[in-house]
């Protein structure tokens, strides 16, 4: 038993977790015809539930899971799982019909109009009652948490943001607060708002489909499932004291020491690469950070046009969307990709900052 627990713990680290969720996402998209079949979906659900019950035998995992404020996370994870299945199931069924030249299922009844009273009102009524009862039962069974009175005198470790912001807190590992806490959240909001103006695909309005809207659904689902929901799960169960990474069944050791020998790009460039010149780190921050600045500039300004020219697909996209829409799309896509890219750089070459000007708090 201990052996299995140790193996599972050792399998978990930020790298395997991220790639695991990425592979899971790719598999989910690729095998959507298979797992959306209700029978297989039920088996998967059963497997997850059994795994969860087994995991609950572990004291540490049970302690975290049953913290009353973490219960909503389970509801959220299972809710997102179920509704991902429901939407993909309907999309797969519709895609099969569309491939045979039939209209989507929704089309069969969309021309028929029904009276709001009673057809819609009773659905709302029943949904309200069911939700009301569920909320009552939840409230009767589970006390709202209340810890000791607030004090600045001691800081709990770990100090965690409310669960729905844990994805942002996880970003702080890789980016400074001005990016992870201010710029990226703003870009998420702006990016979500921009979706209807970027997505000019007239197909797939008013019914579930995947094949007709691949390039809208893929980035949205990647952001929602891989970069948002899975990071909330990670932040809740796998981040302990000092925001160190722990396996799901690993005791949160306050004294766990993790070597943080992260290195700035400027040091890589001036000390390691040009070390033979013996100049060392330049004192002028502008010269010191020139390589990193050029790299960021190349990523945001030079790479998109170059990629667009190279790729027939992107050229087609540019022609269909027009320059303004295309530029916004590419900027948002590159901003979103910035998180996984920084993760990879941190894990592979222990890169701390690409541009580091701590004098003016400008670190990327």
């Amino acid at each position, binding site marked *: 038993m201990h052996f299995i627990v140790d193996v599972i713990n050792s399998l978990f680290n930020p790298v395997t977790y991220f790639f695991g969720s990425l592979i899971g996402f790719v598999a989910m998209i690729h095998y959507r015809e298979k797992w959306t079949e209700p029978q297989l979906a039920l088996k998967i659900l059963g497997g997850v539930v059994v795994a969860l019950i087994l995991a609950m035998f572990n004291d540490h995992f049970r302690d975290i899971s049953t913290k009353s404020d973490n219960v909503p996370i389970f509801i959220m994870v299972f809710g997102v799982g179920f509704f991902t299945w429901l939407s993909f199931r309907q999309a797969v069924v519709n895609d099969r019909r569309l491939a045979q030249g039939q209209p989507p299922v929704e089309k069969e009844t969309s021309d028929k109009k029904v009276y*709001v009273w009673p057809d819609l009102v009773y659905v709302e009524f029943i949904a309200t009652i069911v*939700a009301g009862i569920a*909320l009552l039962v939840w409230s009767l069974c589970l006390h*709202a948490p209340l810890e000791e009175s*607030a004090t600045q005198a001691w800081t709990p470790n770990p100090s965690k943001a409310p669960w729905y912001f844990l994805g942002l807190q996880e970003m702080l590992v890789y980016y400074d607060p001005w990016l992870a806490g201010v710029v990226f959240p703003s870009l998420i909001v702006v990016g979500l708002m921009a979706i209807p103006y970027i997505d000019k695909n007239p197909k797939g309005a008013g019914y579930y489909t995947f094949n007709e809207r691949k390039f809208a659904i893929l980035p949205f689902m990647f952001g929602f499932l891989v970069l948002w929901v899975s990071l909330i799960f990670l932040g809740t169960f796998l981040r302990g004291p000092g925001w160190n990474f722990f396996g799901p069944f690993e005791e949160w050791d306050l004294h766990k020491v993790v070597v943080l020998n992260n290195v700035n790009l400027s040091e890589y460039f001036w000390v390691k690469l040009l070390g033979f010149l013996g100049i060392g780190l330049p004192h002028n921050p502008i010269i010191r950070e020139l390589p990193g600045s050029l790299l960021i500039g190349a990523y945001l300004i030079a790479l998109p046009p170059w990629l667009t020219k190279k790729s027939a697909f992107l050229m087609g996209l540019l022609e269909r969307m027009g320059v303004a829409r295309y530029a916004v799309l590419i900027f948002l896509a590159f901003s979103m990709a910035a998180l996984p890219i920084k993760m990879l750089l941190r894990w592979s070459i222990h890169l701390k900052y690409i541009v580091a000007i701590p004098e003016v708090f400008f670190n990327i």
Partner: protein
Amino acid sequence: MLEGLKKKIDEMMANKPSPEAVKNAIAEGQIWKSIFRHGYPDTPRNRIMAVLSNVFLHLHPVKVRHSGVKMSYTWCMGGLSFFLFLNLTVTGVLLMFYYRPTAEYAYYDIVALREHVPLGIMRELHRWGAHAMVIAVWLHMFRVFMTGSYKPPREFNWVIGVVLLLLTLLLSFTGYLLPWDQLAMWAITVGTNMARATPFLGYEGPGASMLQVGGVKLVTGGSDIHFALLGGHFVSEATLLRFYVLHCVFIPIVAATLMAIHFWRVRKDGGISGPL
């Protein structure tokens, strides 16, 4: 006099009215008519009247696409978000009866709610309802995305929806501080620390040190956006009052206004989405 009354009652008991007749008598009576202005809604005319003549129901159109009322299509998540908002408004008002947003009382008012109110689950209904609303709003957005319902002519209603999502998170976040326990204070500390790093507006943000007049910094620890948000250098009683007012007054008013626009535009943009 009494004899006459007794006779009348006997007569009534002898020919018992059918449930149908009772229903009709009520639905045709003056009281019912004065409230609803139409008979029981079981005829097409009265069903139309039921929606048109009711201030709450008239958010809906009279008729909707059949595909649009199916739960597998809508998941009911938009409606449930609204239901949870109403639930939070009612339970929130009840909680405000007991709660004083000061460092001296806040925590002990919450303790009193737990210890002294028999079967008191108002705080639970409010807290779990808030978590549920965050989840419901996410799932609503997920559904709207997966059905492509943001496509023209509904683009701007999606934008309003994104703002409502943000307001939902902010409502939940500001409410998180109010119990004034360790969980609350440090979650809000972690969350608001980011504000210090806001470019130009936070004193630890890039560009802030450039904003100087005659060598005097404009953005300092005592004048930046973090200070404005907290009413101090760290989470304190001033923060509690600010978050209380934002949580109970300002954000709900903004959210309710935007919700009205959101619902109205669902109608104006062609009702619930469906295939063309």
